[in-house]
């Protein structure tokens, strides 16, 4: 039986043939090979649906240094090695290398070599302050994990948090104090540097501190310091470039006259509307909100599912998780929310929830009437479908527990605070505050950053004689047009206290290296009333110091001591003043010790909101829509979710995971709508020049960048994420990679929150003849011609299937697959025969009972929950010592990820559906790779794992060819300590996980379900059984690195032999399917590899179910 379906999908721009071969029946036991490339419903690259954008020759000239030279060099090296080995071999035998064991002179009581020790601390990479459990082995941190008892992240950690451990061991960390003397950098001693600064402070009181988000205690400390120096509290500037929080806080201040940012409890919401919202990536706490998304909006096992609709002009990760995503023109968010407000206000009154005299309704009317004039210019820009959807949206907002989330790094216009104000009113009308979906008491801590501090700093900076920049850098974070560099050259003494190479160092007189947060003391108050502690987990690796301690020294050199030995003593004092409000009946010593163990203590503060809003209608003025001129586009330069404003660009793993939407690593790219690309006549890898005309000065500035046609981007937009364009030789990872889009952002300011604007500037686009090959991974591990890779299913269809199966009394069984080779041993009996009989041990004399197999490991990946954030890739790489290969190797398709992230589009290129699929080794029970290995380097484990024995591997790469999932990775190089392809260095031996073998050149590797973690769990279970005198205990709650860190709990790992485990339940779920496993309900079993990994199909709301024409 053969079914073939063909239908024509047509839209205004392109016609696409969708052909699907569903299955071939009993008469043909094997799947027929596809005759030609069949276009599936999903596309990984836009070229598949718009062939006119195809890049003819994929091997394009490199911009600098062809890769040819590197090979020539290595051939020569190879020859040298060979002839040298000949000499050595002929002359002498090689003695065994002598290794030493060096025990301590005095062993700490609680320390046993080889046993990992864990510390609770607080992540310092963003102001959210997730709880972190630091696993240290023999005194050095080897892996960070989210602390599962911490209320902010409950065990998860984002990609940046995971990667931060690379910052600790980074060879390019500033290591000793430097001083600029007549234009030259000199190394100096701490005493010298601090004394000089202290002396400089003696003559002036014009001193300021510029820093990022601070905890209240930290802020008090800096204020105390400034007071001692004769400065005032106005001389402390706190600013973060990711400024959604400022806009939200400002809006709440204007509307309710309260400080703070509400916490979004997505787990309570059933319907969420996003307007350029970025709550899953760069919002207040991506991890906290990711958890909420997973619990509230994604499909639950019990069958319910929330709904999420997003309107946006750039394609974001958050938007990709929407049930329906609408592409709107650049800078039309405010107009959209006002339209929504109009419809919402009318309906609220119609439904009798409030009267026409209600102040909220009157306020809404005021806003709408003042915007009326310019609103019409937008109406033509929204499609009919979008306007219709707005009506539906307002209906649903009133029916369900819901909220509207707006704004984010992609919508950082000068109307950002106005947008928040309009959204706030919408949220009040639909009851989001009442239903505690936007939770104001127990909200995010209000004042970690200052109100309008950045503008104040720009105005005041020139008056200071001494400015301390403490782990913050306005040169890096602000658009060039803000003129920070000129301002700072006029300041006499700039002191740069940083824990990574920063551009501001070049303007500084003193460069003082600061501790990494894993070496520091500190605390954080992410949620109001939740105190989270930060403690050192390792002795300082270099001659760095804690910034606060430096200031204490400076103060005492100036002769105005603060009276504290160090910052730790200061914190102790502060906590001592406070601790009785938490625990009354214990001594402070007991209290602080338990806090250090537990990581946090909290009593969330209640804050009340007034009933009525202030009238803020006068600050809302909707500008009219200005379409870009011909040959121009509107630039969006968002803060990157992985590289930030290039502050994380020095971490190789964050460069390597690449942007998940474009799959481009190690580069900047300009994302432009494919239709716009066609109009401009550019394709992928074509270099364009973008020029900003600065009307005020009559000058223009331009940058060149390669194009990536990105479906889903607004037609009038050009999106270039920040994070590139680092021009700093000390930072070899990011030096000369890509461009910094902030260079072509004009001076702009949100007049309400006083924050810089990074989106909406019109830039001219001109073509150049150059090409630059972007390291895009999107087609590297392509599973050609296969259709049953990714699945989406409509809600009703799924429920129907569940009912049908229940009625038939069946239970879904993914493992019920007719055996392709019935004569072969069943996987379980592999390598287990020897254990089947009772034996008398010759060694111990004990009787060994025949053993059973207690485990069959399996993993489920929920495609509806995966947001493509990349945290799993980082966690996996760090846990398993996976090297980063660098841009050149990546262009050759040699990335080493054990877990990769595939991204698929479906539907119209203007408003595509976007889906992510993490693909790791599927651990096939009938693995094609095992059969082809000539040296048995890859074999089957009785527990279902397809194991890889590195030292047996001779590198034939047959297995990689045989693998249908393309998950095997070959070591083309020994990525030695200090080398990455020919690029940067990440691997200091200290940064490697000592529990996992480091692989060398010529060896194949792949995911092994975190074998080291499995072993640790099994050992723990066995030791426990032994201690308790039980015959046996089974390892439970084993987590792989990827599962452990996943902010949305998309990955579930477990034991199928345990009938109550979550993974056993999920394997019977109706959504479960095996990749390339065909359609078992219709008797088609795909390639019959019987993987232990399975996927849960993404469930979409019926209204937007575009999947009904395929399975």
């Amino acid at each position: 039986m053969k079914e073939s379906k063909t239908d024509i999908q047509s839209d205004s721009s392109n016609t696409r043939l969708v052909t699907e071969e569903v299955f071939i029946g009993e008469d043909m036991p094997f799947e027929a090979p596809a005759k030609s490339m069949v276009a599936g419903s999903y596309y990984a690259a836009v070229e598949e649906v718009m062939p006119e954008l195809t890049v003819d020759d994929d091997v394009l000239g490199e911009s600098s240094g062809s890769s040819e030279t590197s090979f020539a060099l290595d051939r020569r090296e190879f020859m040298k090695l060979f002839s040298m080995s000949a000499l050595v071999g002929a002359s002498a035998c090689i003695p065994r290398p002598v290794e030493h064991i060096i025990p301590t002179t005095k062993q700490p009581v609680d320390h046993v070599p080889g046993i990992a020790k864990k510390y609770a601390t607080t992540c310092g990479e963003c102001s959210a302050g997730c709880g972190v459990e630091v696993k240290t082995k023999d005194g050095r941190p080897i892996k960070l994990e989210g602390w599962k008892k911490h209320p902010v992240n409950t065990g998860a950690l984002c990609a940046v948090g995971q990667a931060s451990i690379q910052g600790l061991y980074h060879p390019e960390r500033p290591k000793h104090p430097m001083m600029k003397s007549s234009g030259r950098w000199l190394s100096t001693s701490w005493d010298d540097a601090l004394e000089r600064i202290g002396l400089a402070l003696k003559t002036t009181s014009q001193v300021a501190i510029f820093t990022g988000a601070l905890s209240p205690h930290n802020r008090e400390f800096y204020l105390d310091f400034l007071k001692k120096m004769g400065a005032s509290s106005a001389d402390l500037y706190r600013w973060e470039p990711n400024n959604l929080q400022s806009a939200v806080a400002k809006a709440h201040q204007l509307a309710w006259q309260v400080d703070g940012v509400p916490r979004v409890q997505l787990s309570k919401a059933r319907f969420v509307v996003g307007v350029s919202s970025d709550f899953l990536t760069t919002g207040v706490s991506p991890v906290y909100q990711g958890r909420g998304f997973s619990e509230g909006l994604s499909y639950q096992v019990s069958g319910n599912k929330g709904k999420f609709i997003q309107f946006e002009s750039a394609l974001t990760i958050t938007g990709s998780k929407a049930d329906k995503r609408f592409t709107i023109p650049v800078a039309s968010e405010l107009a959209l929310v006002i339209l929504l407000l109009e419809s919402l206000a009318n309906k609220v009154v119609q439904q009798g929830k409030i009267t026409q005299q209600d102040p909220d309704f009157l306020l809404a009317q005021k806003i709408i009437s003042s915007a009326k004039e310019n609103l019409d210019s937008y109406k033509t820009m929204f499609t009919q479908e979008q306007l219709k959807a707005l009506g539906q949206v307002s209906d649903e907002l009133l029916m369900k527990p819901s909220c509207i989330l707006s704004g984010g790094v992609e919508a950082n216009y000068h109307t950002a605070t106005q947008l928040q104000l309009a959204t706030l009113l919408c949220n009040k009308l639909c009851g989001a505050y009442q239903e505690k979906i936007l939770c104001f008491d127990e909200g995010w801590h209000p004042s970690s950053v200052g109100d309008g501090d950045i503008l104040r700093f720009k105005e005041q900076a020139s008056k200071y004689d001494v400015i301390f920049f403490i782990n913050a850098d306005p040169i890096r974070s602000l658009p060039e047009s803000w003129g920070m560099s000129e301002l700072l050259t006029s300041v006499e003494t700039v002191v740069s206290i940083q824990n990574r190479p920063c551009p501001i160092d070049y303007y500084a007189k003193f460069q003082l290296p600061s501790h990494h947060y894993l070496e520091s003391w500190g605390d954080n108050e992410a949620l109001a009333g939740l105190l989270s502690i930060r403690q050192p987990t390792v002795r300082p690796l270099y001659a760095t110091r804690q910034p606060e301690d430096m200031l204490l020294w400076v103060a005492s050199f100036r002769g105005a001591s603060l009276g504290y030995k160090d910052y730790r003593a200061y914190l102790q004092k502060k906590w001592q003043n406070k601790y009785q409000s938490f625990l009354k009946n214990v001594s402070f010593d007991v209290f602080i010790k338990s806090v250090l163990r537990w990581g946090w203590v909290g009593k969330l503060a209640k804050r009340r909101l007034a009933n009525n809003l202030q009238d803020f209608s006068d600050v809302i003025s909707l500008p009219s829509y200005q379409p870009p001129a011909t040959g121009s586009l509107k630039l969006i330069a968002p803060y990157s979710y992985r590289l930030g404003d290039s502050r994380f660009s020095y971490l190789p793993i964050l460069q390597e995971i690449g942007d998940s939407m474009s799959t481009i690593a190690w580069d900047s790219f300009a994302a432009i709508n494919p239709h716009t690309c066609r109009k401009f006549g550019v394709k992928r890898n074509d270099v364009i020049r973008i020029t900003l005309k600065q009307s005020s000065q009559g000058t223009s500035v331009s940058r060149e960048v390669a194009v990536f046609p990105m479906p889903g981007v607004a037609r009038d937009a050009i999106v270039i994420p920040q994070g590139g364009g680092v021009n700093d030789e000390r930072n070899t990872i990011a030096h000369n990679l890509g461009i910094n889009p902030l260079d072509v952002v004009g001076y702009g300011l949100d007049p309400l929150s006083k924050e810089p604007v990074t989106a909406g500037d019109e830039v001219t686009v001109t073509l150049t003849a150059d090409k630059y090959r972007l390291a895009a991974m999107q087609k590297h591990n392509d599973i050609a011609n296969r259709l049953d890779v990714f699945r989406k299913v409509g809600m009703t269809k799924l429920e129907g299937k569940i009912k049908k199966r229940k009625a038939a009394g069946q239970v879904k069984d993914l493992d019920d697959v007719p055996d392709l080779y019935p004569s072969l041993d069943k996987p379980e009996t592999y390598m287990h025969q020897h254990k089947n009989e009772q034996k008398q041990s010759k060694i111990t004399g004990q009787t060994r009972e025949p053993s059973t197999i207690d485990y069959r490991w399996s993993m489920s990946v929920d495609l509806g929950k995966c947001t493509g954030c990349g945290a799993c890739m980082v966690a996996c790489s760090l846990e398993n010592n996976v090297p980063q290969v660098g841009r050149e190797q990546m262009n050759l398709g040699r990335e080493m990820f054990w877990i990769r992230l595939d991204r698929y589009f479906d539907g119209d290129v203007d408003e595509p559906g976007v889906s992510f699929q993490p693909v790791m080794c599927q651990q096939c029970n009938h693995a094609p790779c095992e059969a082809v290995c000539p040296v048995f380097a890859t074999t089957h484990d009785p527990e279902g794992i397809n194991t890889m024995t590195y030292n047996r591997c001779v590198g034939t790469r047959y297995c990689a060819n045989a693998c249908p999932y393309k998950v095997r990775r070959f070591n083309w190089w020994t990525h030695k300590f200090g080398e990455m392809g020919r690029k940067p260095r990440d691997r200091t031996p200290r940064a490697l996980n000592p529990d996992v073998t480091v692989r060398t050149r010529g060896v194949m590797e792949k995911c092994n379900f975190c074998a080291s973690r499995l072993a640790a769990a099994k050992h723990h279970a066995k030791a426990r059984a032994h201690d308790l005198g039980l015959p046996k205990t089974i390892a439970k709650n084993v987590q792989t690195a990827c599962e452990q860190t996943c902010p949305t709990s998309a990955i579930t790992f477990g034991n199928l032999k345990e009938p109550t485990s979550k993974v056993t339940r999920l394997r019977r779920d109706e959504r479960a399917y095996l990749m390339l496993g065909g359609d078992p309900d219709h008797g088609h079993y795909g390639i019959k590899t019987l993987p232990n990994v399975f996927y849960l199909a993404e469930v979409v709301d019926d209204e937007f179910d575009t999947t009904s024409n395929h399975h």
Partner: protein
Amino acid sequence: MSHRALYFVVIEALLVCLLSSQVYGWWMWTPGDTVDDSTQNGLVAGYEPNQPIPFSHKVHAGDRQIACEYCHNGARRSASAVIPSTELCMGCHKVVAVDKEPIKWLTEKYNKKEPIAWVRVHDLPHHVRFTHQMHVIAGVSCESCHGPVKTMAKVGQWAPLQMGWCIGCHKENNASISCQTCHY
């Protein structure tokens, strides 16, 4: 490099490489490669390196009957059996045999807080993940792998510590012989 010289080097290299497996061993173990295969480099029974001081297991474990786990106290709970800290030595040697030269040396080291660099005897290749804890729990005695330590004045490697030897015992005791038990 001229064409001819290149040709010569290739021939030379290939010839010698074919003749000498030692060369192959060396090439496999280039500095920086951490999957070094120590079995190629003489990891055999009978290796008896000199230690900084002539510590005698015969005296301690044999004559004085000190239990192995008194000093190697990690064996029961950790992957590593643990070489005792100098402090543990000093527990006895503050009073025992204080007049002997090696003990004077030891005391000096202890007082100066200088750790002692003992020479490693039992050294598995880095691609083998061995844990003492599991073996002690399973009731395998120390002597099964380390030999008659109680009679050794100078400790040397007794067992071959090669994979076949491991597997033999694992099979005999119904222990796992899946590759991933030891290699990951």
